[in-house]
Protein backbone atom coordinates (compact mmCIF):
# COMPACT_ATOMS: atom_id res chain seq x y z
CA UNK A 1 0.00 0.00 0.00
CA UNK A 2 2.86 2.39 -0.74
CA UNK A 3 1.90 6.05 -0.88
CA UNK A 4 -1.75 5.74 0.03
CA UNK A 5 -3.32 5.91 3.47
CA UNK A 6 -6.35 3.75 4.10
CA UNK A 7 -8.54 6.85 4.34
CA UNK A 8 -7.67 7.79 0.74
CA UNK A 9 -8.84 4.53 -0.79
CA UNK A 10 -12.11 3.94 -2.59
CA UNK A 11 -14.69 1.67 -0.94
CA UNK A 12 -14.08 -1.18 -3.40
CA UNK A 13 -10.36 -1.07 -2.61
CA UNK A 14 -11.01 -1.12 1.13
CA UNK A 15 -13.46 -3.95 0.59
CA UNK A 16 -10.72 -5.98 -1.09
CA UNK A 17 -8.18 -5.26 1.69
CA UNK A 18 -10.70 -6.10 4.40
CA UNK A 19 -11.87 -9.32 2.76
CA UNK A 20 -8.30 -10.51 2.16
CA UNK A 21 -7.40 -9.50 5.72
CA UNK A 22 -4.72 -7.06 4.67
CA UNK A 23 -6.49 -4.52 6.87
CA UNK A 24 -9.07 -4.65 9.63
CA UNK A 25 -12.07 -2.37 10.17
CA UNK A 26 -10.59 -0.83 13.32
CA UNK A 27 -7.41 0.19 11.49
CA UNK A 28 -9.44 1.73 8.70
CA UNK A 29 -11.57 3.65 11.18
CA UNK A 30 -8.52 4.84 13.15
CA UNK A 31 -6.93 6.15 9.96
CA UNK A 32 -10.12 7.94 8.91
CA UNK A 33 -10.37 9.38 12.42
CA UNK A 34 -6.88 10.84 12.23
CA UNK A 35 -7.89 12.44 8.96
CA UNK A 36 -11.04 13.90 10.51
CA UNK A 37 -9.09 15.38 13.43
CA UNK A 38 -6.57 16.86 11.03
CA UNK A 39 -9.01 18.43 8.57
CA UNK A 40 -12.32 18.98 10.35
CA UNK A 41 -11.34 22.31 11.98
CA UNK A 42 -10.96 23.79 8.47
CA UNK A 43 -13.83 22.05 6.72
CA UNK A 44 -16.67 21.52 9.22
CA UNK A 45 -18.18 18.73 7.12
CA UNK A 46 -19.82 17.14 10.17
CA UNK A 47 -22.39 18.39 12.63
CA UNK A 48 -22.08 15.29 14.82
CA UNK A 49 -19.42 12.59 15.16
CA UNK A 50 -20.30 9.17 16.50
CA UNK A 51 -16.86 7.89 17.44
CA UNK A 52 -17.77 5.47 20.22
CA UNK A 53 -20.54 3.79 18.26
CA UNK A 54 -18.25 3.62 15.23
CA UNK A 55 -15.52 1.90 17.24
CA UNK A 56 -18.04 -0.63 18.53
CA UNK A 57 -19.34 -1.29 15.00
CA UNK A 58 -15.82 -1.67 13.57
CA UNK A 59 -14.82 -4.05 16.36
CA UNK A 60 -17.96 -6.11 15.73
CA UNK A 61 -17.07 -6.43 12.03
CA UNK A 62 -13.53 -7.54 12.88
CA UNK A 63 -14.82 -10.04 15.41
CA UNK A 64 -17.29 -11.56 12.96
CA UNK A 65 -14.58 -11.83 10.33
CA UNK A 66 -12.21 -13.43 12.82
CA UNK A 67 -14.89 -16.05 13.50
CA UNK A 68 -14.80 -16.89 9.81
CA UNK A 69 -18.15 -15.35 8.91
CA UNK A 70 -18.70 -14.44 5.28
CA UNK A 71 -19.41 -10.70 5.47
CA UNK A 72 -21.09 -8.38 2.96
CA UNK A 73 -18.69 -6.59 0.57
CA UNK A 74 -18.78 -3.19 2.31
CA UNK A 75 -18.56 -4.43 5.92
CA UNK A 76 -16.07 -2.20 7.72
CA UNK A 77 -16.23 0.71 5.26
CA UNK A 78 -16.64 4.14 6.96
CA UNK A 79 -19.89 5.91 6.10
CA UNK A 80 -21.15 9.48 6.63
CA UNK A 81 -24.86 10.34 6.69
CA UNK A 82 -26.44 13.65 5.76
CA UNK A 83 -28.27 14.96 8.83
CA UNK A 84 -31.59 14.39 7.03
CA UNK A 85 -31.67 10.63 7.77
CA UNK A 86 -33.36 9.54 10.98
CA UNK A 87 -30.93 7.64 13.17
CA UNK A 88 -32.27 5.88 16.24
CA UNK A 89 -30.83 7.37 19.41
CA UNK A 90 -28.68 9.87 17.47
CA UNK A 91 -29.71 13.52 17.17
CA UNK A 92 -31.14 14.36 13.74
CA UNK A 93 -31.77 18.04 13.01
CA UNK A 94 -31.85 18.58 9.22
CA UNK A 95 -29.55 21.43 10.27
CA UNK A 96 -32.58 23.41 11.41
CA UNK A 97 -33.09 25.13 14.74
CA UNK A 98 -36.62 23.77 14.79
CA UNK A 99 -35.33 20.19 15.17
CA UNK A 100 -32.59 20.95 17.68
CA UNK A 101 -32.38 18.10 20.15
CA UNK A 102 -34.63 15.76 18.14
CA UNK A 103 -33.60 12.14 18.75
CA UNK A 104 -35.52 9.79 16.43
CA UNK A 105 -36.97 6.63 17.97
CA UNK A 106 -36.31 4.72 14.71
CA UNK A 107 -33.83 4.37 11.83
CA UNK A 108 -34.49 5.34 8.23
CA UNK A 109 -34.73 2.24 6.01
CA UNK A 110 -31.43 3.09 4.30
CA UNK A 111 -29.73 3.51 7.68
CA UNK A 112 -30.87 0.00 8.70
CA UNK A 113 -29.67 -1.42 5.38
CA UNK A 114 -26.22 0.15 5.76
CA UNK A 115 -25.96 -1.15 9.32
CA UNK A 116 -26.99 -4.67 8.23
CA UNK A 117 -24.25 -4.59 5.61
CA UNK A 118 -21.68 -3.66 8.25
CA UNK A 119 -20.91 -0.11 7.10
CA UNK A 120 -19.47 1.90 9.98
CA UNK A 121 -21.28 5.17 10.74
CA UNK A 122 -18.76 7.94 11.38
CA UNK A 123 -21.13 10.90 11.79
CA UNK A 124 -23.87 13.16 10.50
CA UNK A 125 -22.95 15.75 7.91
CA UNK A 126 -23.81 19.41 7.42
CA UNK A 127 -26.45 20.50 4.90
CA UNK A 128 -28.64 23.41 3.92
CA UNK A 129 -31.57 23.62 6.35
CA UNK A 130 -34.21 21.08 5.25
CA UNK A 131 -32.09 20.54 2.10
CA UNK A 132 -33.10 23.95 0.73
CA UNK A 133 -30.03 25.47 -0.82
CA UNK A 134 -27.09 25.02 -3.19
CA UNK A 135 -24.12 25.94 -1.01
CA UNK A 136 -24.72 24.58 2.53
CA UNK A 137 -24.67 28.23 3.65
CA UNK A 138 -28.33 27.90 4.74
CA UNK A 139 -27.38 25.51 7.56
CA UNK A 140 -28.25 26.56 11.10
CA UNK A 141 -25.02 24.78 12.13
CA UNK A 142 -22.39 26.89 10.35
CA UNK A 143 -20.76 26.74 6.92
CA UNK A 144 -18.77 23.89 5.37
CA UNK A 145 -15.75 24.73 3.26
CA UNK A 146 -14.72 23.20 -0.06
CA UNK A 147 -11.65 20.96 0.43
CA UNK A 148 -10.18 22.17 -2.88
CA UNK A 149 -10.39 25.85 -1.90
CA UNK A 150 -11.32 26.84 1.63
CA UNK A 151 -12.80 30.17 0.49
CA UNK A 152 -15.38 28.38 -1.64
CA UNK A 153 -18.61 26.54 -0.96
CA UNK A 154 -18.83 22.74 -1.20
CA UNK A 155 -22.18 23.03 -3.01
CA UNK A 156 -25.43 21.90 -1.50
CA UNK A 157 -27.58 20.81 -0.06
CA UNK A 158 -25.50 17.67 0.68
CA UNK A 159 -22.36 19.83 1.03
CA UNK A 160 -21.11 18.18 4.22
CA UNK A 161 -21.37 14.70 2.71
CA UNK A 162 -19.52 15.83 -0.44
CA UNK A 163 -16.75 17.61 1.49
CA UNK A 164 -16.33 14.63 3.84
CA UNK A 165 -15.81 12.16 0.97
CA UNK A 166 -13.65 14.55 -1.07
CA UNK A 167 -11.36 15.14 1.92
CA UNK A 168 -11.31 11.41 2.82
CA UNK A 169 -13.06 12.00 6.15
CA UNK A 170 -15.36 9.14 5.14
CA UNK A 171 -15.15 6.62 2.31
CA UNK A 172 -18.76 6.94 1.16
CA UNK A 173 -21.70 9.11 2.18
CA UNK A 174 -25.44 9.20 1.74
CA UNK A 175 -27.22 12.30 0.57
CA UNK A 176 -30.59 13.30 -0.82
CA UNK A 177 -31.27 15.00 -4.13
CA UNK A 178 -34.43 17.05 -4.73
CA UNK A 179 -33.10 19.40 -7.42
CA UNK A 180 -29.41 18.48 -7.58
CA UNK A 181 -28.44 18.22 -3.91
CA UNK A 182 -26.19 15.19 -4.48
CA UNK A 183 -24.90 15.87 -7.99
CA UNK A 184 -24.07 19.57 -7.62
CA UNK A 185 -21.97 19.20 -4.42
CA UNK A 186 -20.32 16.07 -5.88
CA UNK A 187 -19.40 18.24 -8.87
CA UNK A 188 -18.08 21.12 -6.73
CA UNK A 189 -16.01 18.71 -4.59
CA UNK A 190 -14.63 16.59 -7.45
CA UNK A 191 -16.26 13.26 -6.51
CA UNK A 192 -18.95 10.97 -7.94
CA UNK A 193 -22.61 11.51 -7.05
CA UNK A 194 -25.50 9.22 -7.99
CA UNK A 195 -29.19 10.05 -7.75
CA UNK A 196 -31.15 6.99 -8.85
CA UNK A 197 -34.59 6.88 -10.47
CA UNK A 198 -37.35 8.34 -8.29
CA UNK A 199 -38.59 5.46 -6.12
CA UNK A 200 -35.55 3.17 -6.56
CA UNK A 201 -34.53 3.72 -2.91
CA UNK A 202 -36.85 3.93 0.10
CA UNK A 203 -37.49 7.35 1.62
CA UNK A 204 -38.82 5.88 4.89
CA UNK A 205 -37.27 7.86 7.74
CA UNK A 206 -35.83 10.53 5.43
CA UNK A 207 -37.04 13.98 6.48
CA UNK A 208 -39.28 15.18 3.65
CA UNK A 209 -38.70 18.33 1.59
CA UNK A 210 -40.60 17.87 -1.72
CA UNK A 211 -42.00 14.37 -1.83
CA UNK A 212 -42.51 14.03 -5.61
CA UNK A 213 -38.85 14.97 -6.19
CA UNK A 214 -36.82 13.76 -3.16
CA UNK A 215 -34.54 10.79 -3.76
CA UNK A 216 -31.80 9.18 -1.68
CA UNK A 217 -28.42 8.61 -3.30
CA UNK A 218 -24.69 8.15 -2.90
CA UNK A 219 -21.58 10.32 -2.80
CA UNK A 220 -18.40 8.34 -3.42
CA UNK A 221 -14.88 8.48 -4.79
CA UNK A 222 -15.44 6.16 -7.73
CA UNK A 223 -18.22 4.84 -9.95
CA UNK A 224 -17.71 1.27 -8.72
CA UNK A 225 -18.40 2.44 -5.16
CA UNK A 226 -21.72 3.92 -6.33
CA UNK A 227 -22.69 0.57 -7.85
CA UNK A 228 -21.79 -1.30 -4.66
CA UNK A 229 -23.73 1.19 -2.52
CA UNK A 230 -26.73 1.01 -4.84
CA UNK A 231 -26.69 -2.76 -4.29
CA UNK A 232 -27.05 -2.02 -0.56
CA UNK A 233 -29.76 0.64 -0.87
CA UNK A 234 -32.02 -0.17 -3.82
CA UNK A 235 -35.15 -2.26 -3.62
CA UNK A 236 -38.75 -2.22 -2.45
CA UNK A 237 -39.83 -1.18 1.04
CA UNK A 238 -43.41 -1.74 2.22
CA UNK A 239 -43.09 1.36 4.41
CA UNK A 240 -42.62 3.67 1.41
CA UNK A 241 -45.54 3.41 -1.02
CA UNK A 242 -43.60 5.30 -3.73
CA UNK A 243 -40.75 2.78 -3.65
CA UNK A 244 -40.54 0.76 -6.88
CA UNK A 245 -41.54 -2.88 -6.44
CA UNK A 246 -39.21 -4.37 -9.06
CA UNK A 247 -36.24 -6.24 -7.63
CA UNK A 248 -32.95 -4.43 -8.40
CA UNK A 249 -30.20 -6.09 -10.48
CA UNK A 250 -26.58 -6.49 -9.34
CA UNK A 251 -25.31 -3.07 -10.38
CA UNK A 252 -21.64 -4.05 -10.15
CA UNK A 253 -22.26 -6.40 -13.11
CA UNK A 254 -23.07 -3.39 -15.28
CA UNK A 255 -19.56 -1.92 -15.10
CA UNK A 256 -17.62 -2.36 -18.33
CA UNK A 257 -14.65 -0.28 -19.41
CA UNK A 258 -15.96 0.61 -22.87
CA UNK A 259 -18.89 2.56 -24.30
CA UNK A 260 -19.34 0.56 -27.49
CA UNK A 261 -22.78 0.92 -28.99
CA UNK A 262 -23.97 3.54 -26.49
CA UNK A 263 -25.80 6.47 -28.04
CA UNK A 264 -25.13 9.60 -26.02
CA UNK A 265 -26.94 12.92 -26.52
CA UNK A 266 -25.28 16.18 -25.50
CA UNK A 267 -28.21 18.31 -24.31
CA UNK A 268 -28.10 21.80 -25.77
CA UNK A 269 -30.18 23.27 -22.92
CA UNK A 270 -27.67 21.94 -20.35
CA UNK A 271 -24.92 23.84 -22.18
CA UNK A 272 -26.98 26.99 -22.55
CA UNK A 273 -29.96 28.01 -20.38
CA UNK A 274 -32.25 30.60 -21.98
CA UNK A 275 -29.44 31.66 -24.27
CA UNK A 276 -26.78 32.02 -21.55
CA UNK A 277 -23.92 29.55 -21.95
CA UNK A 278 -22.07 27.72 -19.17
CA UNK A 279 -18.65 28.96 -18.07
CA UNK A 280 -16.01 28.51 -20.81
CA UNK A 281 -13.81 26.07 -18.93
CA UNK A 282 -16.84 24.01 -17.91
CA UNK A 283 -18.11 23.77 -21.49
CA UNK A 284 -14.65 22.79 -22.76
CA UNK A 285 -14.20 20.06 -20.14
CA UNK A 286 -17.65 18.63 -20.91
CA UNK A 287 -17.06 18.65 -24.67
CA UNK A 288 -13.70 16.94 -24.13
CA UNK A 289 -15.43 14.31 -21.98
CA UNK A 290 -17.97 13.62 -24.72
CA UNK A 291 -15.14 13.32 -27.24
CA UNK A 292 -13.49 10.79 -24.94
CA UNK A 293 -16.70 8.78 -24.72
CA UNK A 294 -16.74 8.85 -28.52
CA UNK A 295 -13.24 7.37 -28.58
CA UNK A 296 -14.48 4.66 -26.23
CA UNK A 297 -17.06 3.60 -28.78
CA UNK A 298 -20.10 5.76 -28.05
CA UNK A 299 -21.99 7.62 -30.75
CA UNK A 300 -22.30 11.22 -29.60
CA UNK A 301 -24.73 13.77 -31.03
CA UNK A 302 -26.32 17.02 -29.89
CA UNK A 303 -29.98 17.05 -28.95
CA UNK A 304 -32.42 19.77 -27.92
CA UNK A 305 -35.04 19.44 -25.15
CA UNK A 306 -36.73 22.84 -25.51
CA UNK A 307 -38.91 22.77 -22.39
CA UNK A 308 -35.84 22.47 -20.16
CA UNK A 309 -35.63 26.25 -20.52
CA UNK A 310 -38.57 26.41 -18.09
CA UNK A 311 -37.15 24.06 -15.47
CA UNK A 312 -36.27 26.73 -12.93
CA UNK A 313 -39.71 28.36 -12.59
CA UNK A 314 -41.40 24.94 -12.65
CA UNK A 315 -39.17 23.67 -9.85
CA UNK A 316 -39.45 26.80 -7.74
CA UNK A 317 -43.23 26.49 -7.79
CA UNK A 318 -43.55 22.73 -7.26
CA UNK A 319 -40.81 22.18 -4.67
CA UNK A 320 -41.90 25.06 -2.36
CA UNK A 321 -45.57 24.03 -2.76
CA UNK A 322 -44.76 20.52 -1.56
CA UNK A 323 -42.44 21.88 1.13
CA UNK A 324 -45.12 24.21 2.50
CA UNK A 325 -47.26 21.14 3.10
CA UNK A 326 -44.48 18.85 4.38
CA UNK A 327 -43.14 21.45 6.81
CA UNK A 328 -46.57 22.15 8.31
CA UNK A 329 -45.75 19.36 10.78
CA UNK A 330 -43.21 21.55 12.61
CA UNK A 331 -45.58 23.27 15.02
CA UNK A 332 -43.99 22.78 18.43
CA UNK A 333 -46.38 20.00 19.46
CA UNK A 334 -44.86 16.57 18.84
CA UNK A 335 -41.13 17.27 18.65
CA UNK A 336 -38.57 19.97 18.17
CA UNK A 337 -38.48 23.57 19.23
CA UNK A 338 -41.48 25.25 20.91
CA UNK A 339 -41.57 28.99 21.54
CA UNK A 340 -41.93 30.06 25.15
CA UNK A 341 -45.49 31.18 25.36
CA UNK A 342 -46.81 34.17 27.21
CA UNK A 343 -50.55 34.03 27.59
CA UNK A 344 -51.13 33.67 23.87
CA UNK A 345 -53.36 31.15 22.16
CA UNK A 346 -52.32 28.06 20.24
CA UNK A 347 -52.14 29.92 16.93
CA UNK A 348 -49.63 32.31 18.44
CA UNK A 349 -47.62 29.36 19.77
CA UNK A 350 -47.50 27.79 16.28
CA UNK A 351 -46.57 31.00 14.51
CA UNK A 352 -43.95 32.07 16.99
CA UNK A 353 -42.42 28.58 17.13
CA UNK A 354 -42.11 28.53 13.35
CA UNK A 355 -40.75 32.06 13.16
CA UNK A 356 -38.04 31.24 15.71
CA UNK A 357 -37.27 27.76 14.37
CA UNK A 358 -36.98 28.25 10.60
CA UNK A 359 -34.20 30.13 8.82
CA UNK A 360 -34.79 32.74 6.09
CA UNK A 361 -34.60 30.46 3.02
CA UNK A 362 -36.99 27.93 4.54
CA UNK A 363 -39.48 30.68 5.44
CA UNK A 364 -39.17 32.14 1.95
CA UNK A 365 -39.98 28.81 0.34
CA UNK A 366 -42.86 28.11 2.72
CA UNK A 367 -44.28 31.54 1.84
CA UNK A 368 -43.77 30.96 -1.88
CA UNK A 369 -45.36 27.52 -1.77
CA UNK A 370 -48.28 28.64 0.37
CA UNK A 371 -48.94 31.48 -2.06
CA UNK A 372 -48.71 29.21 -5.14
CA UNK A 373 -51.29 26.87 -3.63
CA UNK A 374 -53.62 29.53 -2.24
CA UNK A 375 -57.13 30.21 -3.51
CA UNK A 376 -57.14 32.12 -6.79
CA UNK A 377 -53.51 31.38 -7.67
CA UNK A 378 -53.46 27.58 -7.87
CA UNK A 379 -54.24 27.44 -11.60
CA UNK A 380 -51.77 30.14 -12.57
CA UNK A 381 -48.89 28.65 -10.61
CA UNK A 382 -49.10 25.06 -9.35
CA UNK A 383 -51.30 23.66 -12.12
CA UNK A 384 -49.38 25.47 -14.85
CA UNK A 385 -46.07 24.27 -13.43
CA UNK A 386 -47.33 20.67 -13.25
CA UNK A 387 -48.35 20.84 -16.92
CA UNK A 388 -44.97 22.21 -18.01
CA UNK A 389 -43.41 19.46 -15.89
CA UNK A 390 -45.26 16.94 -18.06
CA UNK A 391 -43.79 18.62 -21.16
CA UNK A 392 -40.30 18.38 -19.68
CA UNK A 393 -40.80 14.67 -19.09
CA UNK A 394 -42.12 14.29 -22.66
CA UNK A 395 -38.97 15.97 -24.02
CA UNK A 396 -36.86 13.44 -22.11
CA UNK A 397 -38.98 10.51 -23.33
CA UNK A 398 -38.55 11.64 -26.94
CA UNK A 399 -34.80 12.05 -26.50
CA UNK A 400 -34.51 8.59 -24.97
CA UNK A 401 -36.12 7.11 -28.07
CA UNK A 402 -32.89 8.10 -29.85
CA UNK A 403 -30.31 8.00 -27.05
CA UNK A 404 -29.32 5.67 -24.20
CA UNK A 405 -27.74 8.38 -22.07
CA UNK A 406 -28.01 12.18 -22.06
CA UNK A 407 -25.09 14.35 -21.02
CA UNK A 408 -24.03 17.86 -20.11
CA UNK A 409 -22.38 19.79 -17.29
CA UNK A 410 -23.60 19.16 -13.74
CA UNK A 411 -23.50 22.86 -12.89
CA UNK A 412 -22.83 25.87 -15.14
CA UNK A 413 -19.79 26.92 -13.06
CA UNK A 414 -17.23 25.39 -10.71
CA UNK A 415 -17.57 26.05 -6.95
CA UNK A 416 -18.30 29.70 -6.18
CA UNK A 417 -17.04 31.75 -3.25
CA UNK A 418 -18.60 31.71 0.20
CA UNK A 419 -21.08 34.58 0.39
CA UNK A 420 -20.92 35.24 -3.35
CA UNK A 421 -24.55 34.36 -4.06
CA UNK A 422 -26.30 34.65 -0.70
CA UNK A 423 -27.88 37.99 -1.65
CA UNK A 424 -28.85 37.08 -5.21
CA UNK A 425 -31.50 34.36 -5.00
CA UNK A 426 -31.91 33.76 -8.73
CA UNK A 427 -28.12 33.49 -9.21
CA UNK A 428 -28.02 30.89 -6.42
CA UNK A 429 -30.96 28.99 -7.93
CA UNK A 430 -29.22 28.98 -11.35
CA UNK A 431 -26.42 26.76 -10.05
CA UNK A 432 -28.94 23.86 -10.15
CA UNK A 433 -30.29 24.62 -13.60
CA UNK A 434 -28.80 21.48 -15.20
CA UNK A 435 -29.76 19.09 -12.39
CA UNK A 436 -33.34 20.24 -11.65
CA UNK A 437 -34.96 18.90 -14.87
CA UNK A 438 -33.76 15.39 -14.01
CA UNK A 439 -35.70 15.44 -10.71
CA UNK A 440 -38.78 16.91 -12.37
CA UNK A 441 -38.76 13.95 -14.77
CA UNK A 442 -37.91 11.39 -12.04
CA UNK A 443 -34.83 10.09 -13.91
CA UNK A 444 -31.51 8.70 -12.66
CA UNK A 445 -28.54 11.07 -12.90
CA UNK A 446 -24.86 11.10 -12.01
CA UNK A 447 -22.11 13.63 -11.68
CA UNK A 448 -18.50 12.61 -12.14
CA UNK A 449 -15.28 14.60 -12.28
CA UNK A 450 -14.25 15.46 -15.86
CA UNK A 451 -11.61 18.14 -15.46
CA UNK A 452 -10.25 21.06 -13.47
CA UNK A 453 -10.37 24.80 -14.04
CA UNK A 454 -7.19 26.89 -14.29
CA UNK A 455 -7.74 27.69 -10.59
CA UNK A 456 -7.68 24.00 -9.73
CA UNK A 457 -11.40 23.57 -9.10
CA UNK A 458 -13.15 20.36 -10.18
CA UNK A 459 -15.63 20.34 -13.09
CA UNK A 460 -18.47 17.82 -13.20
CA UNK A 461 -19.94 15.84 -16.10
CA UNK A 462 -23.61 14.99 -15.68
CA UNK A 463 -25.02 11.81 -17.22
CA UNK A 464 -28.77 11.07 -17.23
CA UNK A 465 -30.43 7.72 -17.84
CA UNK A 466 -33.85 6.33 -18.67
CA UNK A 467 -36.23 5.44 -15.82
CA UNK A 468 -34.56 2.50 -14.05
CA UNK A 469 -31.65 2.84 -16.49
CA UNK A 470 -29.02 2.86 -13.72
CA UNK A 471 -27.05 0.01 -15.29
CA UNK A 472 -26.50 1.82 -18.59
CA UNK A 473 -25.77 5.02 -16.70
CA UNK A 474 -23.16 3.32 -14.51
CA UNK A 475 -21.58 1.66 -17.53
CA UNK A 476 -21.13 4.96 -19.37
CA UNK A 477 -19.81 6.63 -16.21
CA UNK A 478 -17.40 3.78 -15.48
CA UNK A 479 -16.06 3.68 -19.05
CA UNK A 480 -15.31 7.40 -18.91
CA UNK A 481 -13.85 7.31 -15.41
CA UNK A 482 -11.52 4.40 -16.13
CA UNK A 483 -10.08 6.19 -19.15
CA UNK A 484 -9.16 9.27 -17.06
CA UNK A 485 -7.37 9.96 -13.78
CA UNK A 486 -9.61 12.72 -12.40
CA UNK A 487 -11.07 10.32 -9.83
CA UNK A 488 -7.59 9.54 -8.51
CA UNK A 489 -6.87 13.11 -7.48
CA UNK A 490 -7.53 13.95 -3.86
CA UNK A 491 -8.25 17.33 -2.32
CA UNK A 492 -5.57 18.37 0.15
CA UNK A 493 -7.14 20.93 2.51
CA UNK A 494 -4.08 21.10 4.74
CA UNK A 495 -1.84 22.12 1.86
CA UNK A 496 -4.46 24.71 0.99
CA UNK A 497 -4.49 26.00 4.55
CA UNK A 498 -0.73 26.34 4.54
CA UNK A 499 -0.95 28.45 1.42
CA UNK A 500 0.65 25.96 -0.93
CA UNK A 501 -0.75 26.62 -4.37
CA UNK A 502 -1.25 23.07 -5.53
CA UNK A 503 -4.24 21.39 -3.93
CA UNK A 504 -3.82 18.19 -5.89
CA UNK A 505 -2.02 15.10 -4.68
CA UNK A 506 -1.89 12.08 -6.92
CA UNK A 507 -2.47 8.93 -5.01
CA UNK A 508 0.50 6.61 -4.94
CA UNK A 509 0.78 3.55 -7.14
CA UNK A 510 0.35 0.06 -5.78
CA UNK A 511 -3.29 0.21 -4.78
CA UNK A 512 -5.22 -2.82 -5.93
CA UNK A 513 -7.42 -2.23 -8.97
Amino acid at each position, binding site marked *: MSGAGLHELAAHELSHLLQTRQACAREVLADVWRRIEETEPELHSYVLLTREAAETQAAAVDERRARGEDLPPLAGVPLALKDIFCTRGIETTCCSRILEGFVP*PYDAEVVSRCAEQGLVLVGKTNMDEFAMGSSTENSARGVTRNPWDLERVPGGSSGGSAAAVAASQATVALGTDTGGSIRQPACFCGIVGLKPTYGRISRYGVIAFASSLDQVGVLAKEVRDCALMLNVLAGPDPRD*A*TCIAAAPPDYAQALAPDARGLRIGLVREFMEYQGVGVAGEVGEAVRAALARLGELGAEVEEVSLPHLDYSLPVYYIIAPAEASSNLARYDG*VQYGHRAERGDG*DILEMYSRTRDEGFGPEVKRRI*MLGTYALSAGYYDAYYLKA*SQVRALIRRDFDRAFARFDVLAGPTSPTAAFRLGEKTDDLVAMYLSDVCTIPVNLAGLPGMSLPCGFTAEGLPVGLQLVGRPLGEETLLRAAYAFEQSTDFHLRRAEPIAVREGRRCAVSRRGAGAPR
Partner: protein
Amino acid sequence: MPLTPEEVEHVALLARLELTAQERARFTEQLNSILEHFAQLQQVDTSDIAPMSHGAGAANVLREDEPTPSLAPEQALQNAPDQAHQCFRVPRVIE
Protein backbone atom coordinates in the same frame (compact mmCIF):
# COMPACT_ATOMS: atom_id res chain seq x y z
CA MET B 1 -49.75 41.87 -10.42
CA PRO B 2 -47.26 42.57 -7.64
CA LEU B 3 -47.82 41.22 -4.16
CA THR B 4 -48.61 43.86 -1.54
CA PRO B 5 -47.29 43.73 2.05
CA GLU B 6 -50.89 43.03 3.14
CA GLU B 7 -51.08 39.95 0.90
CA VAL B 8 -47.72 38.79 2.24
CA GLU B 9 -49.14 39.14 5.75
CA HIS B 10 -52.15 37.03 4.72
CA VAL B 11 -49.91 34.31 3.24
CA ALA B 12 -47.86 34.36 6.45
CA LEU B 13 -51.02 33.76 8.44
CA LEU B 14 -51.94 30.81 6.19
CA ALA B 15 -48.41 29.44 6.62
CA ARG B 16 -48.49 30.00 10.40
CA LEU B 17 -45.45 32.24 10.35
CA GLU B 18 -45.25 35.29 12.56
CA LEU B 19 -43.16 37.73 10.53
CA THR B 20 -41.40 40.80 11.86
CA ALA B 21 -42.03 44.07 10.00
CA GLN B 22 -38.56 43.75 8.53
CA GLU B 23 -39.19 40.19 7.31
CA ARG B 24 -42.49 41.26 5.79
CA ALA B 25 -40.83 44.03 3.82
CA ARG B 26 -37.99 41.80 2.65
CA PHE B 27 -40.25 38.91 1.63
CA THR B 28 -42.56 41.27 -0.27
CA GLU B 29 -39.64 42.43 -2.39
CA GLN B 30 -38.06 38.97 -2.81
CA LEU B 31 -41.29 37.12 -3.57
CA ASN B 32 -42.19 39.72 -6.18
CA SER B 33 -38.86 39.31 -7.92
CA ILE B 34 -39.27 35.52 -7.93
CA LEU B 35 -42.87 35.74 -9.18
CA GLU B 36 -41.71 38.01 -11.98
CA HIS B 37 -39.29 35.27 -13.03
CA PHE B 38 -42.20 32.77 -13.00
CA ALA B 39 -44.27 34.85 -15.41
CA GLN B 40 -42.43 33.28 -18.37
CA LEU B 41 -44.35 30.05 -17.78
CA GLN B 42 -47.45 31.74 -19.17
CA GLN B 43 -45.78 31.69 -22.61
CA VAL B 44 -45.90 27.89 -22.74
CA ASP B 45 -48.91 26.38 -24.51
CA THR B 46 -50.23 23.73 -22.14
CA SER B 47 -53.70 23.25 -23.59
CA ASP B 48 -54.63 19.55 -23.45
CA ILE B 49 -51.57 18.69 -21.34
CA ALA B 50 -52.40 16.60 -18.29
CA PRO B 51 -50.50 17.83 -15.21
CA MET B 52 -47.69 15.62 -13.91
CA SER B 53 -47.83 15.40 -10.15
CA HIS B 54 -45.33 12.69 -9.52
CA GLY B 55 -41.87 11.47 -10.52
CA ALA B 56 -42.88 7.85 -10.99
CA GLY B 57 -46.51 8.09 -12.01
CA ALA B 58 -48.50 7.92 -8.78
CA ALA B 59 -50.69 4.88 -8.21
CA ASN B 60 -52.38 3.41 -5.18
CA VAL B 61 -50.43 0.73 -3.36
CA LEU B 62 -52.60 -1.66 -1.40
CA ARG B 63 -51.78 -4.19 1.29
CA GLU B 64 -53.70 -6.45 3.64
CA ASP B 65 -55.08 -4.57 6.62
CA GLU B 66 -53.05 -6.40 9.23
CA PRO B 67 -51.68 -4.96 12.45
CA THR B 68 -47.91 -4.43 12.50
CA PRO B 69 -45.66 -3.19 15.31
CA SER B 70 -45.59 0.57 15.87
CA LEU B 71 -43.97 3.01 18.30
CA ALA B 72 -44.75 2.59 21.99
CA PRO B 73 -46.40 5.66 23.59
CA GLU B 74 -43.18 6.51 25.50
CA GLN B 75 -41.22 6.49 22.24
CA ALA B 76 -43.82 8.60 20.44
CA LEU B 77 -43.71 11.13 23.28
CA GLN B 78 -39.97 11.12 23.93
CA ASN B 79 -39.37 14.30 21.90
CA ALA B 80 -42.48 16.21 22.99
CA PRO B 81 -41.85 19.76 24.24
CA ASP B 82 -44.67 19.25 26.74
CA GLN B 83 -46.74 16.20 27.71
CA ALA B 84 -49.15 14.90 30.30
CA HIS B 85 -51.09 11.64 30.80
CA GLN B 86 -49.49 10.05 27.69
CA CYS B 87 -50.67 12.96 25.54
CA PHE B 88 -49.03 15.95 23.86
CA ARG B 89 -49.90 19.06 25.88
CA VAL B 90 -50.67 22.32 24.02
CA PRO B 91 -52.02 25.75 25.02
CA ARG B 92 -55.76 25.83 25.71
CA VAL B 93 -57.79 25.50 22.51
CA ILE B 94 -61.35 25.53 23.90
CA GLU B 95 -62.55 28.02 26.52
